[in-house]
């Protein structure tokens, strides 16, 4: 079959990202031709500022060099501007006469700088700041001339001013509004930024309008005259008064580009122009649902959806983006989101440390965040933004909202929590020994934009994940405005699908999907049978949503859950028998000792969960070891109930107020065989001395004289999180019902590999209380669903060592001979 022809007009970041996504999906579908007005490959426009400032060089900011086009058989016409689209003959024509036919056309012409109609704007020495050419002209001017004026104190204007200042020019910034970056910052934050720039030597003239640019004797611009009559000397004027979508070539071809305020190539949710379905458009030239985006993250989202349709996959819609602004302005981090102007019906929480250079303002309306501005320390911007998007009720966390979420683990990075202050040689990832410099280098050299890409290339944050927060910070500050954090909320499960965990869970429930192949078919999975990330997630969602109906697929479980033992680094396994509540008997201990002797077990260890671990067992020996132990599986290997740790309690302890051992045993017995999104650990203490350390468990139960206190969503691992008080109950039955209902809620709604602490953080404790405390019917229904799911739970070990065990259960423990 003859290949179809795809032509792209514009060779910038959004367009090339679309091509990259397309080549991933359908590498051989099209003959691709690209026209770019600039004589280069695709480069990272956001990094022009470091180039201007002399911190980076042009080769360093190339995203796709000329080799990339060659390697992918893309015809590149660099330096040829398309001036005409003939939609009838389906071809595009460039200024120099070059023509290209298309079956499908992608317009990605980006934006052009807006030059206000000021007399003298066409003089030599007057520039916009948009591309490599402008940057080179500024660098050239800086070596020759002294005085620069920048008109406009938005991000680009300030970056230009800073770069020119670093190159030795004396710079004055003229701005129309009362404070700088008024779209992104409120006045206090803007004042701090201005003060820090003034301290470096930058001059500001605010609330001033430019009247004319004056021509000097040489014919070059020589001064800027303001409306109030003031004149400032200027050998170089940079106009940074905003950008406008560049849709001229599209509009002249009769493609609808709007009128009035909403201008831009009008596209549908599939990124097809509303005028001509053969013509697609992405990037800054586009108006989608009345919005033209200027940040990279939404443009990449558009590119992804567009590529999907170009590849004839036909799924995925771009439904618009809620954006936040996270920028690095001349080395200072600023963040803003939502409506931060405030008003009569809003409240504010403000932290303002002028000397320390930190300002944080959160605007709240009806217990929900509606806007936020951060200056100097933006690490929590992502969190505030997520809370805002989710409309989460924040009154429970109001008292510590300002101090941030800090998604960092507690160990492995010497307590560092701010990437900016770390040296290049400082270790970020303590699991894989990756330091900051390595990460920064990988981000720049490989053009990485997401945490997942950084994980893949550097291995940082790819093991325990405790340093993910730091890696995110490094990424955000290295790629600047191109970075937008993807929350677990909408993040795709893995590369096999566009769908998020939440969407997959919903679909499995709504369509009553009962096995993995049907699920993948219904949800148009991109790979034939998924991958090691999505299959275990799907398997869990199926069996937890449809207990006793959905088919459990052992091949979609991680080896530990398939072999019912923990794989060790040398390929042997460890065996942890169940020991309810950490209580054992002489007979059990004797059997464990006998097994250790018989199989020459190299290591016998007491676990953190009050059990005994036999390490170094060969896989072939597992069934016999289990049989000889004569104890059920402790599920120490699963995303499942692990243990219920107990203290001695009122049974023996002179301080004990409640019988914690038997409570723990009852709970652990009830939860036997419970699979969950991640591991689940419980503890029961018999008095508030809390010797069982119930405060860092998924469910912690603490006996008091008058009953039991229940705590949920604690965590003792990567990040120590103290469990939150849920409620106090009186009877043992209530302990079972309330904890069971909470765990079932988590089982039904948690995302795979999301611990209870993160689940509760995502939905809010208020939400949990609403389901588990406030509504007795809901609670009882949850509890019943849990008990139903756990009905007839079998000991997986006994099933496998049984004499009449089916071959499929035994097979994996038997080796073959060659």
């Amino acid at each position: 079959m003859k290949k179809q022809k795809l032509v792209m007009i514009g060779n910038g970041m959004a367009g090339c990202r679309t091509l990259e996504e397309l080549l991933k999906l359908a590498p051989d579908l099209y003959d691709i031709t690209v026209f770019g007005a600039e004589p280069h490959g695709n480069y990272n426009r956001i990094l022009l500022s470091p180039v201007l400032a002399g911190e980076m060089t042009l080769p360093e900011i190339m995203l796709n060099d000329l080799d990339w086009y060659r390697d992918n058989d893309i015809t590149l016409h660099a330096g040829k501007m398309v001036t005409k689209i003939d939609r009838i003959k389906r071809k595009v024509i460039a200024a120099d006469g070059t023509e290209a036919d298309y079956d499908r056309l992608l317009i990605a012409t980006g934006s052009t700088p807006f030059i206000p109609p000021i007399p003298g704007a066409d003089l030599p020495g007057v520039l916009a700041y948009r591309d490599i050419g402008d940057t080179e002209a500024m660098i050239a001017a800086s070596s020759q001339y002294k005085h620069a004026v920048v008109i406009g104190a938005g991000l680009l204007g300030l970056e230009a001013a800073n770069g020119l200042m670093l190159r030795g020019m004396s710079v004055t910034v003229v701005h129309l509004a009362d404070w700088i970056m008024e779209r992104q910052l409120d006045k206090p934050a803007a004042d701090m930024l201005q003060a820090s720039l003034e301290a470096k030597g930058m001059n500001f003239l605010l609330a001033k309008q430019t009247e004319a640019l004056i021509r000097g004797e040489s014919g070059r611009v020589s001064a800027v005259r303001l409306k109030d009559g003031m004149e400032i000397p200027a050998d170089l004027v940079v106009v940074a008064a905003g950008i406008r979508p560049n849709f001229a070539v599209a509009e002249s071809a009769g493609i609808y580009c709007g009128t009035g305020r909403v201008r831009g190539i009008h596209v549908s949710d599939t990124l097809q122009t509303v005028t001509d379905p053969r013509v697609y458009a992405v990037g800054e030239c586009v108006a989608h649902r009345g919005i033209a985006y200027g940040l990279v993250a939404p443009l990449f989202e558009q590119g992804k959806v567009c590529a999907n349709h170009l590849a004839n996959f036909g799924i995925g819609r771009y439904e618009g983006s809620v954006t936040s602004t996270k920028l690095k302005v001349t080395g200072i981090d600023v963040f803003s989101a939502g409506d931060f102007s405030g008003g009569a019906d809003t409240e504010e929480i403000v932290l303002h440390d002028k000397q320390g250079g930190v300002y944080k303002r959160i605007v709240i309306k009806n217990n929900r965040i509606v806007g936020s501005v951060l200056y100097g320390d933006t690490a929590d911007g992502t969190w505030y933004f997520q809370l805002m998007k989710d409309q989460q009720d924040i009154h429970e966390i109001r008292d510590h909202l300002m101090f941030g979420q800090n998604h960092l683990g507690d160990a492995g990075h010497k307590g560092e929590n701010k990437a900016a202050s770390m040296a290049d040689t400082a270790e970020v990832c303590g699991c894989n020994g990756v330091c900051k410099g390595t990460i920064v280098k990988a981000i720049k050299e490989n053009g990485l934009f997401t945490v997942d890409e950084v994980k893949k290339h550097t291995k940082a944050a790819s093991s325990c994940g405790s340093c993910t927060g730091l890696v995110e910070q490094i990424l955000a500050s290295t790629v600047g405005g191109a970075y937008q954090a993807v929350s677990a909320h909408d993040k795709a499960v893995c590369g096999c699908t566009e769908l998020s965990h939440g969407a997959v869970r919903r679909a499995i429930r709504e369509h009553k999907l009962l096995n993995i192949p049907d699920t993948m078919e219904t949800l148009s999975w991109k790979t034939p049978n998924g991958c090691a990330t999505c299959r275990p997630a799907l398997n869990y969602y199926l069996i937890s949503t449809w207990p006793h109906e959905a088919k459990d697929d052992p091949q979609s479980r991680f080896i530990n859950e398939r072999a019912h033992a923990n794989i060790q680094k040398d390929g042997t396994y460890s065996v942890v028998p169940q020991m309810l509540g950490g209580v054992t008997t002489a007979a059990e201990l004797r059997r464990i000792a006998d097994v250790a002797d018989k199989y020459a077990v190299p290591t016998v260890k007491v676990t953190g969960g009050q059990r005994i671990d036999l390490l170094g067992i060969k896989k072939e020996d597992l069934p016999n070891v289990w049989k000889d132990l004569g104890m059920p599986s402790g599920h120490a290997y699963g995303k499942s109930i692990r243990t219920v740790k107990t203290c001695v309690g009122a049974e023996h302890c002179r301080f004990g107020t409640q019988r914690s051992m038997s409570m723990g045993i009852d709970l652990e017995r009830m939860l036997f065989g419970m699979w969950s999104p991640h591991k689940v650990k419980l503890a029961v203490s018999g008095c508030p001395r809390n010797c069982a350390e119930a405060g860092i468990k998924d469910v912690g139960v603490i006996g008091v004289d008058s009953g039991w206190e229940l705590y949920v969503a604690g965590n003792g691992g990567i990040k120590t999180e103290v469990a939150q008080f849920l409620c106090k109950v009186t009877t043992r039955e209530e302990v079972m019902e309330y904890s069971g209902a909470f765990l079932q809620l988590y089982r039904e709604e948690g995302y795979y590999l999301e611990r209870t602490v993160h689940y509760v953080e995502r939905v809010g404790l208020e939400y949990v209380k609403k389901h588990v405390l406030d509504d007795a019917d809901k609670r009882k229904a949850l509890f019943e669903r849990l008990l139903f799911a756990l009905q007839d739970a079998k000991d997986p070990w006994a099933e496998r060592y049984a004499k009449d065990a089916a071959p499929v259960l035994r097979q994996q423990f038997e080796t073959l001979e060659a």
Partner: protein
Amino acid sequence: MTTTLSPSHVSSAAVDAGWKTICALEDIPVLGSRVVKSRAGDIAIFRNAEDEVFAMHDKCPHKGGPLSQGIVHGRQVTCPLHSWKIQLDSGEAVAPDVGCTRPFAVKVVDGHVLLQVSA
């Protein structure tokens, strides 16, 4: 290094020298594996969803993890220790990881899995 990797479903009943019958195709679970003890060390044989069969040294090029215990998807297996992805047909690690484990020739004849083990 062995490079001939015959596709499965070879209908010819001719059994060349060096080929050894290991088990029935049905003895390997779909999207699963079995371990074969041989003079050359442990060999993992995999079966994917298309009933293609692959064999390679049961050692991940990264830290020697037993690939037989990994999750099989498409024509790849993900190592159970540190999630490297290994290409089943070549034994090569999937980029950006770099490394290779030794593949062995394997084929299916009349529903039987045959492996070529050179000493």
